[in-house]
């Protein structure tokens, strides 16, 4: 059974088909890359999977169960975690609090009213440990909005990891980062437990080939091709549509 599956998934914005009959499978433990030119519909695809957008038609299955009609939070509870291409953080809160909030929700504490959150030292320590592993523990008490962009990018990842997802969707996690910080992100992703299924959107082909064992190419909302990195690298259409285009750029 796939960790995540979409069947004939469609999304139209007016006349524009941003997701066009996407049949997709993410296997347990996969390191799956989603590539495609800007505007191909990659982010939209992730928004459909997480429930941020409702599909025009088609189905979404998590671990074999149809979640198409479920709200976002129900999907998160079933192990779906994501990061955003554009930082989506609690800017006015501290870095530690950003992760702590996610960890508390994961533990189902969000409705607990008359006990102190800080009494859960174990969860605070866990959140802090996550920051350490991403090398941002020194900024644990700084407000997110005071951090440089690169570190904010790491907080983005830390929040998703705090959910301990079984399916992790990474939308250009290293977008706009210098290579030193890109390395931290990719090392972290590479060190994640093998049983997490990861779908990553990334433009840097070198990184994609290093990380992924499966690649899907999306063009104008439709799957152009799917295969192993080697198959993708040698496919003529992909070279024309995507790789070739980037060689010139």
């Amino acid at each position, binding site marked *: 059974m796939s960790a995540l599956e979409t069947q004939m998934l469609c999304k139209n914005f007016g006349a524009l088909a941003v997701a066009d009959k996407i049949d997709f499978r993410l296997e347990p433990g996969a390191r799956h890359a989603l590539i495609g030119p800007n505007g191909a519909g990659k982010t939209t695809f992730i928004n459909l999977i997480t429930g941020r957008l409702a599909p025009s038609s088609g189905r979404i299955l998590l671990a074999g169960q149809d979640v198409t009609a479920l709200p976002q939070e129900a999907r998160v509870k079933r192990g779906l975690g994501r990061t955003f291409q554009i930082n989506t953080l609690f800017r006015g809160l501290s870095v530690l609090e950003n992760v702590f909030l996610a960890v508390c929700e994961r533990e189902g504490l969000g409705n607990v009213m008359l006990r102190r959150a800080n009494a859960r*030292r174990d969860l605070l320590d866990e959140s802090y440990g996550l920051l350490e592993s991403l090398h941002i523990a020194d900024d644990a*008490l700084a407000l997110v909005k005071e951090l440089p962009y690169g570190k904010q990018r790491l907080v983005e990842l830390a929040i998703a990891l705090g959910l301990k997802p079984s399916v992790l969707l990474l939308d250009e996690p290293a977008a706009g980062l210098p290579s030193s910080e890109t390395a931290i992100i990719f090392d972290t992703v590479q060190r994640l437990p093998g049983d997490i299924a990861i779908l990553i959107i990334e433009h840097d082909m070198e990184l994609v080939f290093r990380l992924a064992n499966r690649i899907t190419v999306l063009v104008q909302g439709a799957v152009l091709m799917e295969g192993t990195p080697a198959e993708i690298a040698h496919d003529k259409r992909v070279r024309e549509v995507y790789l070739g285009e980037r060689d010139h750029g």
Partner: protein
Amino acid sequence: MFRWFNSDKGSAVERFVQRDALKPIELLPWILAIAAYYVFPSYLPLGSQILLTILFAISLDLALGYAGIITLGHAAFFGAGAYAAGLYALHVTGEPLSGLVVAGLAGGILGFLSGLVILRTSGLTLIMLTLAVLLLVQEFANRARPITGGADGLSGISMKPIFGQFRFDLFGHTAYWYCLIVLFFVWLFALLLVRSPFGRALTGVRENVTRMHAIGAPVRRRLVTVYTISAVLAGIAGGLLAQTSQFVGLATLGFERSGEIVIMLVLGGIGRIYGAFVGVVIFMIAQDTFAKADPAFWSFWVGLMLVLIVLFARGGALGVVDQALRWVRKVRR
């Protein structure tokens, strides 16, 4: 190795935890309130007004300051509580504590029902809808003359002694202590609430709704819950007004009360509980001072003060204090 350094794990988490510890200065409002009782015995009715307005501001802070629900209609719940307490005293019993429960229920039910509908929206739409709810309730109170007394309001309310022991006296001694003790418990509850996982998650909703969804929080339900809690507290504040002034009029549902409470909270600083204490006191003193110095234009000066705060001190008076403290610490280093 260097355990005493700041970057040590124990100390960063420790300092994070320490932020929530009760500090001695947090007892100051209570010391001042008790001192005021002895220093200004002839101002006790005004004192009671201040105390119940602080309670009202705390209720608003939960919704506006913590959860980020911008509302201009909070007087709807205050007024609902006031009318409920008044009607209860007139038609059922003048027993005050059960009257407060009824007032809280009235505010809470109205908050829950209106919250279910209006909290689907956000931004300007939401502000307009909070106003619409207030106008609806106002108009209802105005039209339902046989029940509410219309423009004449509810009078002739008489209260029984608290616990059958402490009767409400002409000089407002009992009323002052009554308000103070109710405020104290509401303050304790609010502190507990904002430091709970639920309360922390509210700040998450305020800071970023999209991310809150993405970490699996049922955002709408949380908003309706806090809005209801906030409305219960606003109802209790209204109930206190009805019981201590023994009159309920349309002004309890007034737009002015709605707007002023927002101004007070912003003056003091939103999202910090104590902004309610500081803001209400500053506003009342400023109103009094300006009214004496310039009876014709005092509201202009209050407005100017608000503009300055919003432009230059977004955290309100307490925000300014915070910044000053941070600056002093930096200079000392």
